[in-house]
């Protein structure tokens, strides 16, 4: 076993093993939902053997082992990086899909209904009831409003109910 650390990654979270051609990432389960870990891990199964584990409460570990067993340090770092980026993408995508459910479902239903000549439910016409202006309050770019302004818009009860978990990206403005 020859343990490897990778430049740019926290050494306690990403560890490689050159002899095995593997890299293990430890993921904080409070930051990334398990579905995102599954989704990100899955994209590696054509190239790697993938093993998920729970080394301790609140953590998930993902070991990616190069199927050919021939990965060098650069290739392992690349795998770790790609996994990390995919994990973020999957986690964020999940949130986006939840938030945009109305639009996504409407368009999907309309597309499938169009393709099978059946009435769509919901259909694009139902978007007349959709509040296009309200979306601005999500302000993904942080331009239209400051965090404080966004915060002020909510009732105290809402704010209490929505306080992000400690360590979550929105927890510290």
């Amino acid at each position: 076993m020859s343990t490897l650390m990778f430049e740019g990654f926290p050494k306690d979270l990403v560890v490689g093993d050159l002899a095995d051609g593997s890299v293990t990432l430890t993921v904080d389960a409070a930051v990334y939902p398990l579905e995102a870990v599954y989704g990100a891990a899955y994209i590696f199964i054509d190239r790697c053997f993938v093993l998920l584990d729970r080394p301790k409460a609140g953590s998930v570990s993902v070991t990616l082992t190069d199927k050919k067993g021939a990965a060098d340090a650069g290739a392992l770092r690349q795998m770790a990086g790609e996994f990390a980026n995919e994990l973020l993408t999957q986690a964020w995508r999940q949130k986006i899909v939840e938030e945009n459910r109305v639009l996504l479902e409407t368009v999907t239903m309309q597309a499938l209904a169009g393709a099978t000549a059946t009435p769509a439910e919901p259909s694009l016409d139902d978007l007349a009831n959709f509040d296009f202006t309200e979306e601005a309050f999500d302000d993904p770019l942080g331009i239209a409003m400051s965090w404080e302004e966004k915060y002020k818009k909510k009732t105290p009860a809402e704010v209490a109910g929505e306080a992000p978990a400690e360590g979550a990206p929105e927890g510290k403005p």
Partner: protein
Amino acid sequence: MLAGIEKPSVTFPAFFRVREVSGSFVVTNAQGDWVVLTAPEFKAFGEGTVERGTDLWDRLKVANLIRSEFDVPAAVARLKKRMKFLENGPNLHMLIVTLRCNETCVYCHASRADMEAVQTDMSAEVAEKSIELALGSPSPFITIEFQGGEPLVNFKVVKHAIEYGQRRALEVGKSIEFTMVSNLALMDEEKLSFLLDHKVQICTSIDGPEHLHDKQRKLIASSAFKAAVHWINRINQAYIERGLDPSLYHVEALLTTTREALSRGREIVDTYKSLGCRALHLRPIDPFGFVEKTASRVEYPREEYLKFYRDTTDYIIELNKKGEQILERYAAIFLTKILNGEDPNFLDIRSPSGAGISAIAYNYDGLVFAGDEARMMHETGDDTFLLGRVGELTYDAMMKHPTIRSLVLASNVNGRPDCVNCAYNPYCGVDGVHTYKTQGSISGRMRESTVSAVHKGIMDYLFEKIRENDPGTMEVFRRWTINRARDHFVQVPG
């Protein structure tokens, strides 16, 4: 903060997305309305200090970007207009009539087979079953596109499919159109007469000037370029002889932009011009078919491609200003969405993308795939997007296939990280099969996607031009958004 905005207003702007392009700010909304603002204008917009009655107020109001003035019916109407393509099921049905090909291309997308590989020919029976499945689409109008390999290699089945398709479309009361993508080297007068008599639209591939084309597309013992040019001229002449308007009816060609092409933009345009082509699609090379194996020879970084795109499109615009009529296809697609608020239904740049819901590929062996890229992946060993087999699969089962539903959901830009924040969201789209191939997932990672980089780069270029507002350029752009239907090729029942 962008443009020095100090105190952003929560009450003035309606929902918007923004992108800084060369010092200006492209602001769009969910429906695809847009304005290009200077930095002070964007600051005023962001801070909500725009005075009613000013030019800026009026421009923002027209673009439905002022919250207090927001016009919901207009927004819904615009969104519906842009998404009209959702109404009618798949209309593009690609029949891969053979994998055999007489040419060998350095980047071959189609995963070709040698000329002896007759087992890769589609049978007449599979062609008929494919057409039956295609006619199950609720779309009142279907296009059957013959592809390969080289479709002329299996002309017997092409002929049969055309005759069968014409008869059956008539019987079920649908309009039908046939197109064929061919390198033309195996064309002869008899085949041409048949194709012309049956109103088949013919399209070819031209990779640029003769030396480049012949270097990339090898034809044993002769010039692939000369063969293609001979038949382009012959077909164009035949259209004129049949009384068709040559400005509308002529052979168009497809370009594959390899590394070597990047330094030859002008020569490529001049070649297309000399052949009478009026459209040039500066497509970058894609990862399907055989290109992976030859990637080191033909691939290139996307910044190089975008420089090529800008320089070449500048040149095309200049030619147009001098009276030539030739458009760049990417620009035409995006401009139609941006300037007209309509989607030209280009399946790879659509949200949701066309794979499955708008385009189906029927392989020579009867296997059915969610689009041609999906079919090419099968040839390289991946059946992720296989929907079933003709004769067994019903149209309804095909459209309700979970693979299609997943692709529709995953390729919606409103469910994709990066795209949800991107100012180009209303005009864009990236095919889920492509992201699966390149990044392992059907939703993809747009920050790392070469397709996203290309789309962003091209739209940056177009919005720079729109901001410059040169009357000559804008007139050219306007012309590029006019889609003249080629009715001659559409065979209407009754």
